[in-house]
């Protein structure tokens, strides 16, 4: 399967600074670069449908044709359910396209706002859009 990483040029130059946030700051958007929206396509490897935020890992082919693993977090399960996204809608092996904002640190970590499933359905996964 051909994977692709769709990263606007503005997203490549991620500001490498650490926000002054405490450990366990899982709710904080302070660690994300809200001015740089990126879109990645890859294959789901794990899904943790859990509080406080749903976590998903997926494998993406980067600009060097290397397979790399990204982690993305979504809203909590109760909010995702209200948007219409069921817990069984995403599973390992699925191809997904995720739009969100990357970690300021440059880590392969993102806060997702939209996930597009293989059938083309786009789901809202953040209360902020």
């Amino acid at each position, binding site marked *: 399967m051909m994977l692709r990483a769709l990263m606007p040029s503005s997203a490549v130059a991620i500001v*490498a600074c*650490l*926000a*002054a*946030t*405490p*450990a*366990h*700051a*899982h*709710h*904080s*958007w*302070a*660690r*994300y*670069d*809200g*001015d*740089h*929206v990126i879109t990645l396509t890859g294959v789901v490897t794990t899904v*943790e449908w*859990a*509080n*406080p*935020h749903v*976590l998903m890992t997926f494998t993406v082919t980067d600009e060097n044709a290397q397979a790399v693993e990204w*982690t993305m977090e979504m*809203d*909590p*399960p*109760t*909010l995702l*359910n*209200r*948007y*219409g*996204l069921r817990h069984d809608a995403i599973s390992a092996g699925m191809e997904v396209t995720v*739009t*969100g*904002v990357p*970690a300021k*640190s*440059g*880590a392969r*970590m993102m806060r997702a*706002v*939209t996930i597009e499933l293989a059938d083309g*359905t*786009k*789901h*809202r996964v953040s*209360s*902020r*859009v």
Partner: protein
Amino acid sequence: MSHRPLLLPTLAAFAIPAAAQAPPPAGFPGRPPPAPPAIIRSLTVEPDAIEPGESVELRWEALNTYSLFIDPDVGRVATRGSYTVTPAVTTSYTLTATGAEGAITQSVTVTVAGTPPRAPASDSSAAAAPPVPRLPDGNPDLSGVYLGGRDLRLVGAVELVPGAEAYRIETVEGDLGNGVSCLPPGVPAATMMPFPLQIVHRPDVVAIMYEAYHLFRIVPIGREHADYLPPAYMGHSMARWEGDTLVVDVRGFNDKTVIAGHRHTENLRVTERYRRATHETIEYEAIVEDPDVFAAPLRYAGPLTLHPEWEIGEYVCTENDQDYDELFENDD
């Protein structure tokens, strides 16, 4: 009774009821990307032809909606569900889903044998709005599921008393202090989170149950605070009526929460006001005072919007409260 196959939804022009409108959310830290549009996945009715007096079941599923509304006879609904109706005459039911790109609709029609089509209602949604409910003692009944969230805002500036700069902490707009560590965020922060709360109201007490962190507050009405109040994240609440406004005096806080980017002392005191201005809305206000930190009271205000279609869900914050520091480490 006739049992024909499910009727396929049909597109229909439809005047959107005022109650179906919903503003887009706010709070994205930068320029927000486009939100996915609302999608109506299904709307069915079974059966779609009945004799007078019989009932049918509407079923629906939608995605990415800010609000979802079925007209007539049903009202606001959750993202998926079913509802039994007994139309007296042939009736078309329209599902209106409002999302990031506006409203979309689908309709289904139930044919009631020997009856004419139901006449479309005039645009009288405002006139038809139900009145503010009342308790047996005549006071407004605040009961219901509501969302305050980011509609509640700090009004005005934060002024510190001399020497209180040390109480200022690093924070980011939209973050809510202790909430990031699965600890109770305090008052009014718990009401400002993007999770609904449920108020259960009887004449002598109000119970406020927050989906966020599974917090609850028990608020007696017409009683006095105890002489000693052990310090608590959510404080201790007592209420009284001022006309149709329920005034809640909250004191007895610990010093571990965050107010507008500042720590505070145990002298923190919050005065909340709840006024059910309409059936759909509570006007909410919180006046925050700590004479050791703030030179003037802080005021938070905004609406709590009724969401009868929602239930308070399970939110166990510590379930997967792992150390996110590792996830943010740049290994390259």
